[in-house]
């Protein structure tokens, strides 16, 4: 399938799929806004890595995957985790370290794991998910199933050795892995052009014999189309793809980082090209959604977010006798 055909395919997805993609993007947006507002107001302690501006980049990829496909993400992963099917209660619970969290609060902000839904691991270490994604791909290959593994990482990860080792092995073993580079133009607080001379990060894949595709990460359907092509390749045994999804970061590196080092004009351009309202307006323009329905959805999701956050805030933390459980399999006479 050509890129143009794939793009047309994404734009002609069933309306229910299009609305589901928008709903997920809006859920990410509203969940993040509400959580950061709570941190600002001192409603609860915590820390957080915002994805504002990158909702389409994350949701577009995962919407193109199957429910049983594997995914690995990073500490800036709330959009990936929600897109893969986690509930708001499970996410907020984990962000606040409560028993209602998906890992009962033992992982926290940077370690969301939801294996039932294929969200296998969230790493807090830049680039470290990529070698692990190869193992999931290898498992599918050896087990003879057609599951695909996606692994997202920021542009900063293109500077680390693990990614390059992983790309080489994925290519050598023809693994069904999609390397999803969320290029938000910032490696923490350092701009892209201050840490590399590579003009297009997807070019990093080419020397390994892996196709490197770059797509506008603020256009969720362009992202979906590119990811669907990569998933098809992987599923039929044609091996890995490096998918660079460019979506400028709008906020600082983490909650509390004002981003005062970021170029104001560039941030303003990114805000003006915000992927969430952009897709919402497209749905309205296409007649897929009435403006009143758009507003109703906003209100409905805001309510869901509020309720889910209340569940988390009112949930307990683990009892202290849980300190030593889950270090090893149960029954191991481990050091204490």
């Amino acid at each position, binding site marked *: 399938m050509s890129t143009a055909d794939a793009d047309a395919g994404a734009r002609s997805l069933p309306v229910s799929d299009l609305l589901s993609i928008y709903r997920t993007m809006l859920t990410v947006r509203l969940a993040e806004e509400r959580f950061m507002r709570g941190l600002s107001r001192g409603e609860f302690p915590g820390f957080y890595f915002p994805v504002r501006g990158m909702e389409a980049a994350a949701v577009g990829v995962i919407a193109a995957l199957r429910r049983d496909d594997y995914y690995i993400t990073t500490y800036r992963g709330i959009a990936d985790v929600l897109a893969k099917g986690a509930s708001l209660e499970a996410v907020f619970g984990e962000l606040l370290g409560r028993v209602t969290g998906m890992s009962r609060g033992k992982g926290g902000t940077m370690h969301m794991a939801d294996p039932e839904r294929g969200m296998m691991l969230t790493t807090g270490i830049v680039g470290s998910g990529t070698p*692990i994604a190869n193992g999931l791909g290898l498992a599918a290959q050896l087990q003879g199933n057609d599951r695909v*593994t996606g692994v997202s990482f920021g542009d900063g990860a293109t500077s680390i050795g693990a990614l390059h080792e992983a790309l080489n092995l994925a290519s050598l073993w023809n693994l069904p892995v999609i390397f999803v580079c969320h290029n938000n133009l910032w490696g923490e607080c350092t701009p892209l052009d201050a840490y590399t001379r590579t003009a297009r990060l997807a070019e990093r894949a080419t020397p390994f014999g892996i196709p490197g595709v770059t797509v506008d990460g603020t256009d969720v359907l362009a992202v979906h189309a590119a990811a669907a092509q990569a998933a098809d390749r992987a599923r039929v045994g044609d091996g890995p793809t490096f998918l660079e999804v460019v979506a400028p970061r709008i906020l600082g590196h983490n909650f509390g980082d004002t981003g005062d080092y970021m170029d104001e004009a560039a941030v303003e351009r990114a805000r003006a090209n915000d992927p969430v309202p952009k897709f919402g307006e497209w749905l309205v323009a296409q007649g897929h959604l009435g403006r009143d329905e758009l507003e109703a959805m906003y209100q409905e999701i805001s309510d869901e977010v509020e309720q889910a956050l209340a569940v988390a805030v009112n949930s307990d933390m683990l009892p202290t006798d849980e300190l030593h459980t889950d270090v090893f399999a149960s029954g191991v006479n481990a050091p204490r």
Partner: protein
Amino acid sequence: MTATHTESEMTFGEAINDALDIALGSDPTVFLLGEDIADPPGGVVRLTQGLSTKYGTHRVRATPISEQAIAGAAIGAALGGLRPVAEIMLMDFMTLVMDQLINHAAKHRYMSGGTSHLPLTVRTRIGHRRGAQHSSSYEAWFMHAPGIKVCAPATAQDAKGLLLSCIADDDPCLFLEPTPMVRSRRRSQVPAGDYRVPIGQAAVPVAGTDVSIISYGQMTPAALDAAATLANEGISAEVVDLRSLVPLDHHTVLTSVAKTRRAVVTHAAARFAGPGAEISAMIHEELFGQLERPVRRVASAFTPVPFAESLAQIHAPDASTIAESVREVMT
């Protein structure tokens, strides 16, 4: 493997190869990956010789020289339902996989609140007489990282039984293979077929009443030699071979020292902040009033492993330095 009750004579290396052969033959989810492990050559010291020929290169996978990629692939495959056995050629090269093994393999069960587990084994060889970057013993690093088990067998029989236990275990396991033992042509009795040595259970190869010599891995033969020498001098030394460092068999150690009231701990890792520091502290904490003498540690000097033979000989402990320490605690 037909007769499970017979024994055969094997070297330490042959016992490891036999364990891998049995695991590959009996469990289709087991596979091996590592540098040079496929035939030919079947491993740089031939430990995996014959296995790729028997089971195929899809299950005995030679990799690029990419330690992070090897460890990461093992972790992911374990998450995907397989039981990988990764080989990191030498313990010094474990420095290259610390992020994958410590930040990911060791912590993932805990971080996921017990919803995930990683049944993977990493085999690594402790080098010998190859200078500072190919001979080091860093097992204390892994003892200090909650979530990974550490096994250090001293005999062919334990090597096979412990490796099979590691592969079947639902936690990440580090399995240590000291080069002097891997290279040794000495054969000893090893049961045929599948048997397991429990992880976390020490052995007492020599019983004694005057002093406990606590050892593991490559120092256990030296501890046994020392015990034999001391027996001729009328000193009855009990040798405790830990076999596993995590979990550590506190019970066997404390039972032995409660009886002998004297202990010498020995290992090839550096004495300073080495495994012996933990073992010694544990003995002092639990048996303070019962000890005749403070616990002694006989271990390597706190230097990079030297190359010059003159320095190498005094860097690490041996049977004579162990025996000398025992004589000191007997006075």
